[in-house]
């Protein structure tokens, strides 16, 4: 049990390092709080954005927390991949450069998987394989497929 957990921990930790540095050119990693007593202690998640000190993910900014959370979710996929992901406006607090970074990584990860995302930002919409528009009509929701690649603003 301990061995299995340590193996899984390593996989996720390595993947976090990989994805985070790709997205932000900073560093991020996991730490075991107490290696001798794994199942009654916790796991810390530390990030270091470029030109900033390392910090726990609980005390960074709103946009930084969004990035850290997405990297954590995608790293867990390495351990056991979900068949699909449902994301509802996860990019709400990201600035333009980080939204772009997000769209690159999600696009990359979506091969062989399925990401169904509600998004308001162009950078994510542009990368989609399929775009649906939802609109209200006669008191109900109607759905229409957008033709790629022109997006009606």
């Amino acid at each position, binding site marked *: 049990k301990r061995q299995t*957990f340590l193996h899984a921990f390593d996989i996720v930790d390595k993947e976090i390092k990989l994805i985070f540095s790709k997205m932000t050119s900073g560093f991020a990693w996991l730490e075991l709080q107490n290696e001798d007593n794994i199942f009654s202690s916790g796991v810390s998640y530390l990030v270091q954005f470029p030109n900033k000190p390392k910090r726990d993910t609980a005390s960074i900014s709103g946009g930084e927390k969004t990035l850290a959370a*997405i990297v*954590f*979710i995608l790293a867990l996929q390495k351990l056991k991949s979900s068949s699909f992901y449902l994301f509802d406006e996860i990019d709400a607090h990201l600035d333009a450069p980080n939204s772009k970074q997000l769209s690159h990584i999600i696009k990359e990860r979506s091969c062989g998987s*399925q990401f169904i995302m509600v998004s308001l930002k162009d950078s994510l919409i542009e990368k989609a394989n399929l775009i649906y528009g939802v609109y209200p009509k006669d008191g109900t929701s109607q759905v229409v497929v957008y033709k790629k690649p022109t997006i009606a603003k």
Partner: protein
Amino acid sequence: VYISKLEIAGFKSFGFKNTVIHLKQGLISILGPNGSGKSNILDAIIFALGENKPKMMRVDKLSSLIHDVNKNKHGIRIARARIHFDNSDRKIPLESNIVTSTRELDINGESTYYINNKKITRTKFLDLLDVANLSLTQLNAIQQGTITRISEFSSDEKRIAIEDLI
């Protein structure tokens, strides 16, 4: 396994006339004005996979999921969501290329489940989805406005997130 088609009828802002949404693998984007029904599409998927906590679908009680704007010309008011899974990789242990998972809810809050149009108990339904790793967790279904909470997980929650996947 992935979702190849979604059918929604009488569920939240979707009327009783069946709405069909064809999907494929990769990245799918849903857009539209505020209040148009985007989040309700994700709720319909969560509902069809057996979610029973009303709060997870942003309602106070299950029967509030039934569409309440237009009347149903075709009879009694039922909320229905059906997911068509592409099962060519046979992750769902059934001998068919397409597996449909359907849930219906009546006005008393009672649900009926179907796999490939055969009625099945809720327990068997959930077991089948679990075997194929189709259950939703807070790490693969992120509700609107909650993404930053994952960074605020306690250190135990982070450990458990890894443990759950082993």
